[in-house]
């Protein structure tokens, strides 16, 4: 069973790829470089406060804007184990699956969870547990096709094993 467990960083609607990783840093594609500037324009303290395993929770349309895969790469390289949101922008959703960054859509969790909460996510069942508030929320499970890509830990491995 794969799971994520960590403390929460909370953001609102329409967190765009420009604030996740500003274009001024896109002259590098090194994950470690990108991670150093992750969320910089929305939360200056994110990088200094994030610990491996932590979870980002946001509201509507997380990851809107550009197609830069640098955005989920930066988040993953910063140590984030899962992003929970009410909804994701389509390209970000696709990119996250393709690079193996776990994401879960759950309206209830997005509304209820607050910054600093200790949260656990079970990817097999989609169940989200808020240990701080002693509550659970049911996240949306992936369709089987996407689950296969996730199980292969990304599109590259999926293609390598399916050709």
């Amino acid at each position, binding site marked *: 069973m794969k799971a994520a467990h960590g403390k929460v960083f909370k953001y609102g609607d329409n967190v765009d790829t420009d604030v996740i990783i500003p274009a001024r840093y896109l002259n590098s*594609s090194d994950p470690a470089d990108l991670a150093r500037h992750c969320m910089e324009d929305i939360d200056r303290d994110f990088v200094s406060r994030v610990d491996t395993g932590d979870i980002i929770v946001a509201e509507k349309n997380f990851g809107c804007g550009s197609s830069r895969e640098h955005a989920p790469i930066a988040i993953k390289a910063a140590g984030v184990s899962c992003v929970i949101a009410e909804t994701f922008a389509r390209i970000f959703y696709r990119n996250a699956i393709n690079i193996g960054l776990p994401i879960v859509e759950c309206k209830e969790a997005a509304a209820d969870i607050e910054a600093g909460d200790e949260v656990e996510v079970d990817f097999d069942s989609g169940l989200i547990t808020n240990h701080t508030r002693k509550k659970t929320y049911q996240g949306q499970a992936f369709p089987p096709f*996407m689950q296969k890509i996730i199980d292969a830990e990304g599109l590259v491995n999926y293609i*390598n094993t399916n050709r």
Partner: protein
Amino acid sequence: MGMTMTQKILAAHAGLDHVEVGQLIMAQLDLVLGNDITSPVAIDVMKDMDTKGVFDRERIALVMDHFVPNKDIKSAEHCKCVREFACQHEISHFYDVGQMGIEHALLPEKGLVVAGDVVIGADSHTCTYGALGAFSTGVGSTDMAAGMATGQAWFKVPEAIRFKLVGKPGPYISGKDIILHIIGLIGVDGARYQSMEFDGEGIQYLSMDDRFTIANMAIEGGAKNGIFPVDDQTLAYIKEHADRKPLVYEADADADYAAEYTIDLSSLKPTVSFPHLPENTRTIDQIEDIAIDQVVIGSCTNGRLSDLKAAAEILKGRKVADRVRTIIIPATQQIYLDAMQAGYLKTFIEAGAVVSTPTCGPCLGGYMGILAAGERCVSTTNRNFVGRMGDVTSEVYLASPAVAAASAVTGRISGPADLI
């Protein structure tokens, strides 16, 4: 149940007679696109794939446009990486400094996309080619890598929102005003996971440049793609630019839409998106006195010849206001040349603007016009997110070339009518 235009194109490329909303399909690709930011990541990913090479060297376009001519050593390394890849795999459509333009203006101009195509690009504004009656959508670098290797991509068949355009737009109402109005109406996630399908008699009044601008910003409504029906104007454009034959798909009369809007083009006014989301629209008559520091006219949204013409007509015989840096960037070399021959560049320079070689530059806060803290810019680009063009406290106001040029003259956000 009938199919939308997008669904028909996707079905045909998946070898199916019929597709349903939500169905996951594997589609054949006509073209795979990448730029100087996204291609290096894709090239890296391809190295991890068990693949001998690219699926078709004629069906990959690599365009160096975001940070070129290179702004620093790191961006030069990126272009070098792509240049070497293009050389090694004998990619036919590699566009470097001297031939390049901003990708979404360049590809249609070079005839690389025709009606009926399925195109993926590792750039969110790949949806621009919907203006030609093609299905095109933005993806990330891993999808680009998989596309280059296999010539295929997976898609979830989208439902559609129908926008019926009726009436004739008034003077100074451009494609930009139409799409800003629509995004103001539906919001930045109003068409998330959906197609925006345009139809209606009003389309006949829209030039191809207007349609490119509208399809370009479908992503700003969260859409997977935006698409226009193919008419005589589309066919004439394709004939002039491309060798390949277009395939014309039409939505079925009984196609199902998630929502329908009627947009009366004759009622629209010049429209501006306020910081920091494209959905924060106001019409020009609702805008108070807002002083500005910079104007940018260019980008894949509004850097085409008709955009430069609209700006030149306003700037002719006028000067830009003191302390308003006015930066004008033709989107491709061809547009640059045409603008020069038409005398627009002379007009711009005499007005006190600067004219640059094609580049994305300031649009994404790369270089060539970065804003300092608290500065305001009226820009014909497509995004006004926090920090998009510079400091996190700077502000970007999205507008048409006519509004941008008028604002450059007055030094405040202004419509062309304010100049008379």
